[in-house]
């Protein structure tokens, strides 16, 4: 154990925070005392909390952002190794059950300053406009209490902040401007998807992706090393850790790493006073005028439930009884096939091409919702997990099929899950290393999800065959991303937060992450989480101007 082990000793303190763009570098950081009442304490620094920290501090609010994860400097801390990089994932214990139990950790939960964006696959897609009103316009799910045109503007803001590399013209949805940076060169795996689509006569395009295709300041362009979901060691990946958070620090926010928030405290009037958090071996209390919970769809409800007190015996903001309910994931089934050509899918970001055909086409479906599908590029450990899990191989057959690694290509969906009240995050009796009850997660697919999965697997199988693949097989169970559990709405009886992200029950308690999604859409959620964070920041600014914050 060295002095500078970011997993044991906090780096962001004493007036400085790590400079993520320089080896061994530091940037100055404004620091607040625990008993100083800051405008906002933000719990979590990922797509939701990281973005909001930046925006609120730039609007002049005093902000302290707390994260249980370490503060990495990717250039020096990230190895080219899947096993080592498990350190980026949320690997503290969680119990996961139900008919289609979720595999948590690697594929959906991070524990770093910067959140799970540190290991996200960088696919950055906008919602189809109709999804914000899916009940009214498409006849399923519930409506979001926001207008798509408003979100469209915030999407653009995020795309520019992340300097997305994407197509000059995006083939689906209302017109949008050119993406800031050019699309990346397609690897063979992405060209397999393209060939399949061309053969089947549907549109495809280069994926809008948050990794640089040209230099940007001190950040290097992508070198196509392919370790994206094991963490980007070059800073080509544009995420909270190297975009929003450096801006937040510059604007005067304080970020505390290795700081686990265990409880949000209410005062006698039912308003939030601050948060109890654990750092450097002791429990502390940070005073705040407002608290924003941004811990993602498991940790956010867990914290609210763990904060139960006499004024709120069922947990904070839970008068509706919906905290921890309507948990959603994305259907994430893959279809894989072998090709005579060498594909070598370990090279370049895994999902360089995609089609949103089945997100934007409503004809020919026997299910509600939609799905996108993307090219794939799993590295050996991940691929072995797929082979032993979904393909049920071990022994000689495992080794033999693993030897075909360089000839495999695959297509994988991000498919819309229907929100079900029975999919939940609750508290278990078991405690974690901080003595806090751990999460007990229950998940099962709806019948509609199953129809969507069957349709997608069937279609992708045809597409792979058309592209020249053989020995094709499909994954049974696989999910990605997490959403729901603190849904946003217009009605306090059927939602946890109002359209501004403010909880209905506690006026100075806010939520800003994927847990407020009422529906999941058929695209990766990170762009929408960030866009929503920008929107909530603007709402807070407007409300503050009217003295309503």
């Amino acid at each position, binding site marked *: 154990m060295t002095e500078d082990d970011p997993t044991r000793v906090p780096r962001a303190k004493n007036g400085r925070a790590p400079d993520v763009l320089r080896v061994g570098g530091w940037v100055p950081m404004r620091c607040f005392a625990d008993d100083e009442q800051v405008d906002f304490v933000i719990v979590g620094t990922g797509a939701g909390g990281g973005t909001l920290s930046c925006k609120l501090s730039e609007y002049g609010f005093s902000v302290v952002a707390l994260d249980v994860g370490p503060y990495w400097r990717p250039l020096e801390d990230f190895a080219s190794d899947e096993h080592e990089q498990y350190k980026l994932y949320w690997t503290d214990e969680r119990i996961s059950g139900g008919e289609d139990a979720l595999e948590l950790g690697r594929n959906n939960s991070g524990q770093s300053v910067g959140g799970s964006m540190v290991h996200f696959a960088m696919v950055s897609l906008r919602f189809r406009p109709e999804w914000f009103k899916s009940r009214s316009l498409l006849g399923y799910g519930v409506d979001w209490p926001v207008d798509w045109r408003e979100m469209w503007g915030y999407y653009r803001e995020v795309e520019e902040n992340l300097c997305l590399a994407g*197509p000059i013209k995006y083939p689906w949805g209302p017109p949008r401007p050119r993406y800031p*940076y*050019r*699309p990346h*060169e397609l690897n063979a795996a992405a060209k397999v998807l*393209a060939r399949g689509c061309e053969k089947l006569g549907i549109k495809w395009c*280069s994926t809008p992706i948050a990794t640089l*295709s040209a*230099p940007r300041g001190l950040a290097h362009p992508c*070198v196509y090393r392919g370790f994206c979901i094991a963490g980007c060691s070059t800073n080509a990946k544009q995420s909270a850790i190297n975009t929003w958070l450096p801006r937040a620090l510059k604007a005067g926010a304080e970020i505390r790493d290795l700081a686990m928030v265990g409880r949000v405290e209410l005062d006698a009037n039912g308003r939030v006073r601050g948060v109890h958090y654990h750092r450097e071996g002791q429990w502390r209390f940070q005073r705040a005028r407002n608290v924003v919970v941004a811990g993602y769809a498991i940790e956010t409800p867990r914290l609210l439930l763990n904060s139960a007190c006499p004024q709120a015996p069922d947990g904070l903001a839970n008068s509706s009884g919906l905290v921890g309910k309507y948990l959603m994931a994305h259907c994430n089934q893959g279809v894989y096939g072998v090709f005579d050509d060498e594909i070598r899918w370990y090279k370049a970001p895994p999902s360089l091409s995609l089609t949103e055909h089945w997100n934007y086409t409503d004809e020919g479906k026997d299910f509600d919702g939609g799905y996108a599908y993307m090219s794939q590029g799993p590295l050996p450990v991940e691929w072995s997990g797929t082979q032993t899990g979904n393909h049920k191989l071990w022994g000689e057959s495992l080794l033999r099929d693993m030897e075909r690694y360089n000839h495999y290509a695959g297509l994988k969906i991000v498919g819309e899950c229907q929100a079900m009240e029975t999919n939940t995050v609750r508290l278990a009796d078991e405690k974690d290393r901080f003595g806090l009850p751990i999460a007990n997660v229950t998940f099962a697919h709806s019948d509609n999800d199953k129809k969507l999965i069957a349709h997608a697997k069937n279609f992708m199988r045809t597409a792979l065959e058309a592209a020249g693949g053989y020995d094709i097989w499909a994954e049974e169970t696989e999910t990605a991303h997490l959403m729901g559990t603190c849904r946003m709405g217009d009605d306090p009886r059927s939602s946890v937060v109002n359209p501004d992200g403010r909880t209905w029950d506690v006026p100075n308690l806010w939520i800003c992450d994927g847990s407020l999604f009422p529906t999941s859409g058929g695209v990766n959620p990170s762009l929408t989480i960030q866009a929503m964070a920008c929107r909530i920041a603007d709402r807070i600014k407007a409300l503050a101007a009217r003295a309503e914050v």
Partner: protein
Amino acid sequence: MRTRARPADRLRALQDALAGNARSPALLRSEPPVGAQESADVARLLNAGCAILASSVLADSSMEHYRGSFENKAMFVPPIVSTLALIASLHGASDRSARAERRRDAIYALSAAAAAAGFGFHLYNVGKRDGGFCWENFFYAAPIGAPWALLLSGTLGVAAERVRDTRPGGIPHIFGMAAGRLLAGLTSAGLLGTVGEVWLLHFRGAFQDPFMYLPVTLPPVGAGLLASAALSSKPKKRPLTRFWMKLVTVLGLAGMGFHIYGVHRNMGGWRNWSQNVLNGPPIPAPPSFTGLGLAGLAALRLLEGPKNE
């Protein structure tokens, strides 16, 4: 007695000249005669420009075709032909004789022909990919503008031989056209074509560095000045055009410096050269402007007449 040609007539004459089917005496008359030494000097300057263009092509096509694993045997052609063109140009640049040299002539003609075929190959490569003639393929398939520099090297080289062949006291001409005008027009078009290629590649690079705008703004001005010189009816000193050609010449070398810096800016810097010289900005590309700048200066010498002041 001479009357000023109307601009439209002059433009038509130039178009005819460029199309290679003109025998316009008016165009011939408007240029000053040169001595034997002068024509050889101008030709040598042109040869120097060709040498720079050819070495740029040699380095660039070797690197890019190595990157493409020399998948097609035809991919060996540009490195070989540009090597020949480089040898011929170096020979020409050191040759003080006032007579054309047949082997140099043949090599230049060959490289122009190879470049024309190269356009065809590159166009085919873009079109055959999934998506066809779309932005992605213009970015990542065979670069459509790359054979341009070889074409210019070949064409300017053939022109150099013609200029060299001028009889003492005669007016340099190329296939019956006034050499100064033709060269100015050719160089002007060459600059614009090169700017087109640079624009595509710098657009591809999102103009992430403000200096990336220089090669798409300075050379077009030079191209305009040269074109106006080509269209002008009487010989006169053109200090601005001359200055601008020198600027373009220097720009090519500065661009190479920027690209060397750009490679260093990629992940791993020069330690990771085996990736970064291929994925970073192409170091040998910018000197094309230097070659064209020299050609522009050569054209000006013919247009302005001998240095006698």
